[in-house]
């Protein structure tokens, strides 16, 4: 699949933003009010909103984007839009009370958390539902999205330096969640369903497989088309192994080392911020591969 920058940016940043919102809603220790609370809200809400805005750049007709809220009964993309907007409105109310009245309303926070998790889950389901892309059509896809989102949220929350009040040691919690999230991703990479593992090949695509070996002789047109550009993208697979290593080193290795340092030498807001940025950078590579490596059934016709 074509790795569109707008969609990569959207899934990574809104994932991190909604992950932070989940933790805020759960009452993770943060500045009690005022400027600190404002900045925490700005970063969490901002990441979520920037991501959503960037996703509209992917649309051919962004001016009609509002129509996407209508089909929540059947469409995961529509559900995602609805969940995101409801969650952000609830969070706006929560943040107002927090910043101006020193009041983190517990029940409202819980709704923000539930909404944030639902938003990330619905985002993941947009890809998971695609039978035409077997590698996405995997129960581990939403698991990875959710774990990555919560891990980014934890690291971002830690950057505000209020970890002392936490019930569990925040560096330890962050370390565990980094390991678990990337562990799930490794499993996803391992389990990699393919078109052939689902029984699809050029033979079933053309129905000619029962006669003999089927091979494309001539494409319909000599040039490219929407389908080959959007779905028969090849570049990603060439360097996949190297890119996976890069994603793991930056997105997992670096934050793990930082967390271990904090466990030994004590937590530090700046170090948390470094870990968060590294994790997000690693996820950009991971997300690029998520698209570039995915093989769509239509590639069997080309």
């Amino acid at each position, binding site marked *: *699949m074509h790795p569109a920058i707008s969609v990569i940016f959207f899934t990574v940043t809104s994932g991190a933003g909604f992950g932070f919102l989940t933790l805020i809603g759960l009452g993770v220790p943060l500045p009690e009010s005022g400027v600190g609370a404002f900045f925490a809200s700005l970063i969490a809400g901002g990441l979520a909103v920037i991501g959503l805005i960037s996703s509209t750049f*992917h*649309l*051919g*007709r*962004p001016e*009609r*984007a509002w*129509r*996407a*809220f*209508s*089909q929540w*009964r*059947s*469409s*995961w*993309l*529509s559900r995602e*839009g609805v969940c995101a907007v409801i969650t952000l409105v609830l969070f706006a109310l929560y943040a107002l009370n927090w910043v101006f009245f020193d009041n983190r309303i517990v029940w409202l926070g819980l709704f923000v958390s539930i909404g944030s998790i639902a938003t990330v889950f619905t985002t993941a389901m*947009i890809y998971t*539902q*695609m*039978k*035409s*892309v077997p590698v996405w059509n995997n129960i581990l896809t939403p698991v990875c999205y959710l774990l990555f989102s919560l891990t980014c949220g934890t690291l971002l929350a830690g950057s505000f330096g209020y970890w002392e009040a936490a019930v569990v040691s925040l560096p330890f919690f962050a370390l565990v969640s980094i390991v678990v999230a990337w562990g799930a991703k490794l499993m996803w990479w391992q389990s990699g369903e393919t078109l052939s593992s*689902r*029984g*699809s090949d*050029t033979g*079933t*695509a*053309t*129905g*000619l497989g*029962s*006669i*003999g*070996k*089927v*091979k*494309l*002789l*001539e*494409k*319909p*047109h000599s*040039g*490219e*088309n*929407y*389908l080959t*550009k*959007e*779905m028969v993208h090849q570049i990603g697979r060439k360097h996949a192994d190297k890119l996976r290593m890069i994603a793991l080193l930056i997105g997992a290795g670096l934050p793990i080392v930082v967390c271990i340092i904090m466990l030994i030498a004590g937590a530090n807001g700046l170090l948390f911020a470094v870990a968060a940025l590294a994790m997000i950078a690693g996820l950009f590579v991971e997300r690029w591969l998520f698209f570039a490596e995915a093989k*769509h*059934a*239509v590639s069997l*016709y080309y």
Partner: protein
Amino acid sequence: MTSLPTETTGKKLGLVIDLDTCVGCHACVVNCKEWNTGGYGAPLADLDAYGAEPVGSWLNRIHTFEVTPEDAPASIVHFPKSCLHCDDAPCVTVCPTGASYKRGEDGIVLVDENMCIGCGLCAWACPYGAREMDPVENVMKKCTLCVDRIYNDNLPKEDQIPACVRTCPAEARHFGDLGDPESDISKLVAERGGMDLMPEMGTKPVNKYLPPRPKTHSHVEPEAPKAKALDAKGFLGWLDKTLEAL
């Protein structure tokens, strides 16, 4: 509403494509483009049509495959591909706007271009590559089964069929109600062993493909013509020997 229709008439209009007789002439492709550029919805656009890298949206494309049986020489199969108007159409249920829908009355899958936001999700969901984004209007285009011809009483009776079917010089394309087992087209499917493409995707296509008829294989190995031994005499013989010796 992009749920699949719950109330249907049982009518399933669709195409049957005969892979035995298709000669790969692209006439259906051209007529499809011509009709759908003037008919339903936005024109089917091309970019850089006369330049080095032309691209454009087409609702029907002909691929050509080479099929090699175990025990016989390879043969060529031309393979027209367009929307199969699936019964369980994933392209419909993924649509966030309600632009992509399947009609209860005849099973045709359509896009309401005024509602489409061009998100491309339906094209991702279709395993067959039957949907293409228009490069100018930025809305999703797909085969309409010539919904603006088949019910159009302003056209002569013989033209009230999809443009591709009307134009095919090899009569490789057939149109009719695949939901009615007594229709000519259903009988043709039964008789010729019509098949679904990628049934494992669970889309339940309405369109069917008729496989190429079995070929009669000759069991005698074709003989390569052997070079005749030259035994020319006289001057030619002398010339042959001399040239050989050079």
